[in-house]
């Protein structure tokens, strides 16, 4: 095995320093036409103005604590079953019944994201760079909830930390058939789940390029997805992946996100890949991830009312209608993603680069 692996690694011939070879925008041919990146940051893309007046003119949403005071104003008549347990039950078994409390949606015209349906409709946002037809209804739902707003929102902080700390969350992409990292009209992009810790500097906070990640071919096999893409002026744009699962452990609770028609738009360099993951998030999976990862304590800290948010998500869902009810089951979204170059090790490839385990 040792010799086999050694031969495999030598066979790769990846012994040059990616970092030393090119700056952003320069022509750079990755060794063997192959370069990998590992995800280091991932979070719902939220367009924010400094005082939030543009997107949230009515202020931010209430969370469980504030709603509790409104719903149960009389301390004398409160019971555990009638208050805390009632709210807890509804959090875990949400409905689309009308919300008795007001909910503040994003009202501004701008959002990050992609035009997923290639249409420009009345509900679409405009990208801050002027691009029209941006589909990002998750942003419309969470943009006025402080827990989802950076840099201090509880969701932002925990998710960033979890991605770095938890191997469960290790998502990678590998680009193959790359002739030039700045411009190539046909590359193959494969999404993998990794197995290893991130390579960091001595502080443990900064992720360094040049690490190695083994592909999880066991539990991660069903997460492997392949698509095609093109690179223009160092920006990779992929075709959609019909259904992608993103491992999403937070606060030690394992869960996932399910993104349909997922595509990537990443600015590439030999050491980094930063940009967007966009697609349609399955609403029930989205919500389950939230409440599995966050207790009411955390939701309260971020003023996130699961009960109200679920109703909003369902109300804003804009794709994949249920064949029976006609209600949309998925909601357009975009996530900010940061990735760092990594050597992706395929342990069972036995030196044969052409026989990937991808579907």
């Amino acid at each position, binding site marked *: 095995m040792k010799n086999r692996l050694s031969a495999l690694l030598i066979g790769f011939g990846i012994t040059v320093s990616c970092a030393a070879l090119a700056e952003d925008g320069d022509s750079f041919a990755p060794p063997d036409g192959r370069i990998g990146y590992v995800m280091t940051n991932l979070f719902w893309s939220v367009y924010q103005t400094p005082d939030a007046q543009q997107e949230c003119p009515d202020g931010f949403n209430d969370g469980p604590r504030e709603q509790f005071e409104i719903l149960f104003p009389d301390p004398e008549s409160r019971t555990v079953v009638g208050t805390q347990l009632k709210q807890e039950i509804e959090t875990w078994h949400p409905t689309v019944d009308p919300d008795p409390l007001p909910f503040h949606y994003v009202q501004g015209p701008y959002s990050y994201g992609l035009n997923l349906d290639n249409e420009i409709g009345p509900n679409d946002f405009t990208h801050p760079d002027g691009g029209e037809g941006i589909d990002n209804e998750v942003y419309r739902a969470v943009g006025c909830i402080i827990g989802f707003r950076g840099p201090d929102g509880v969701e932002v902080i925990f998710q960033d930390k979890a991605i770095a700390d938890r191997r469960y969350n290790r998502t990678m992409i590998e680009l193959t058939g790359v002739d030039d990292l700045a411009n190539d009209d046909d590359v193959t992009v494969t999404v993998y789940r990794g197995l290893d810790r991130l390579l960091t500097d*001595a502080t443990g906070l900064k992720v360094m390029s040049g690490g190695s990640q083994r592909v999880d071919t066991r539990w991660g096999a069903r997460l492997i997805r392949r698509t095609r893409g093109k690179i223009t002026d160092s920006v990779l744009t992929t075709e959609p992946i019909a259904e992608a699962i993103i491992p999403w452990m937070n606060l030690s609770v394992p869960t996932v996100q399910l993104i349909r028609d997922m595509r990537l738009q990443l600015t590439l360099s030999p050491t980094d890949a930063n940009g967007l993951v966009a697609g349609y998030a399955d609403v029930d999976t989205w919500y389950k991830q939230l409440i599995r990862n966050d207790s009411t304590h955390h939701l309260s800290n971020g003023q996130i009312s699961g009960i109200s948010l679920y109703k909003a998500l369902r109300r804003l869902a804009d794709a994949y209608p249920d064949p029976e009810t006609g209600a949309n089951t998925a909601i357009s979204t975009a996530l900010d993603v940061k990735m760092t170059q990594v*050597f992706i090790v395929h342990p069972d490839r036995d030196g044969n680069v052409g026989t990937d385990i991808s579907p």
Partner: protein
Amino acid sequence: MRCRQASIMFIVGLLAACTSGTPEPEDSASPLRVRLMTGEQYSNTLADIFGADIADSVAPPLPPLARTDGLLASGATYAGVTSDQIQQIQQAAAFVAAKVVDDYHRDFLIPCEPESNKKADATCAAQFLRKTGRLLYRRPLDETRVAELTRVADSAADQTEDFYAGLALALESILISPEVIFIVDIAEPDPARPGQERLNAYSLASRLSFFLWNSAPDDALLLAAERGELHTQDGLEKAVTRLLSSARLEDGLRAFFDDMMAFDEFASLAKDPVVYPMVTGATLADAREQTLRTVIDHILDKDLDYRDLFTTRKTFMSMSLAALYETPTTNGWVAYEFPEESNRSGLLTQVSFLAAHSHAVRSSPTLRGKALRELFLCQKVPPPPPDVDFSALEDAGDVPTARERLKVHNSNPSCAGCHLITDPMGLALENFDGAGRFRETENGAELDISGELDGAEYDTVGGLAQAMRDHPKLPYCLVNRLYAYGTGGPVSLRYDRNILSYFEERFGEHNYRVPELLREIAISKAFSRVRPAPEAAEQVVNGNRANPSKLALN
């Protein structure tokens, strides 16, 4: 693995028997020494006798040693312990003793059960103390000493109404004994050389064991000593062959090379995280481990020519190191071979050497050249003069490379002399920065890595590696260090010149295979014969004699 090594040893032994070389010098002998056990020897001894869990649960209480003539081990012969250190030794002894007798260990570490846990049991106590004391003292205890220790155990058991507490106290008293903490050579008259001395069998057993295993003798070796086998040629060769065939030989060799390559420096080695963000504590620890694995694989597992360590591209890789070497790898340690075009070949191009002999923020041709000469060629590079002016080096102006900076510095004649013997070979390693990462340029300037090593000229890193591999002092230096390491102190150029030449010749005859060199040293007359200290020669009497220590025996 053991079978493989045994087979190798057998074949090499046969070959050796067919080789007619110069006989060992008749006057060869080594001095008696009293040396402090190293921290690793203390831990290994506890692990071998009581188990690794107990050994790992206590920090070795022994003081750091001063590197002497290239080895920390040689510094052990000049080391003592302060009253504060004695207190630490006592605390460790009490901790270990309590562990040995606790509920989790007593059933398999104590060979008997007392009649009652709540009172003394002299028979059981004596049985344990006799057996364990023999391993810790590295010789059998006479019955007077056993009775003395048993009284300690009984008395304490009576006071505490706890047999095991009493036993722990007696064990503690063994563990703090100077004869346990110090490795004391004991001489006896040598029947083959009237008027001369040799190590007694138990001292020879200890010397062999600490040399090859870096730990105390096991039961079989003590038994061989007890039966007088170590003083017969056949018995000694049989014992040495067993030691060399044991998996513990790896522990011994790792300890030696860790010492020889001054890897203790890694305990305080750090790199500026701004300049070298990829270098963490884990990276440096792995760098040390990588080289040790390379050495062990090369000289022990594969039994290859020692000199080829300086040109081999085969090594082992870990994830944190792979990033520095800019290559992919999988988790754990895996065998790895640098590609031919990688500019990496041999120990000098491994991160351990390159990073350890650099500054925190930049490489240092001078430190690398100095280390190369001192660690592997046993040459001494004088320290800089006390009034040296570094300003020319620090403020060399707008010069991008180390070669140019040193050129400015060496315009001072008082500096140039020493730098001439370090810098040419250190500059050949300038393709590697202070963390050991490959670079084509420094500050944008192309690097000139040409140089020469004692007459061998080169213009590539591979050229330096080959020059090092072919350097006549390379095998000599290993012989020097191994002999010093085995006999417990620095070699004497006055007395040891002939024996070192003999070993060097034998090393060559064995195609520079280290296990055979170990065997030659271990079975040599020099290893067991005692060379009297000039001032003590007249003190030889017809009984055992200890080195000038005042240690009470038994």
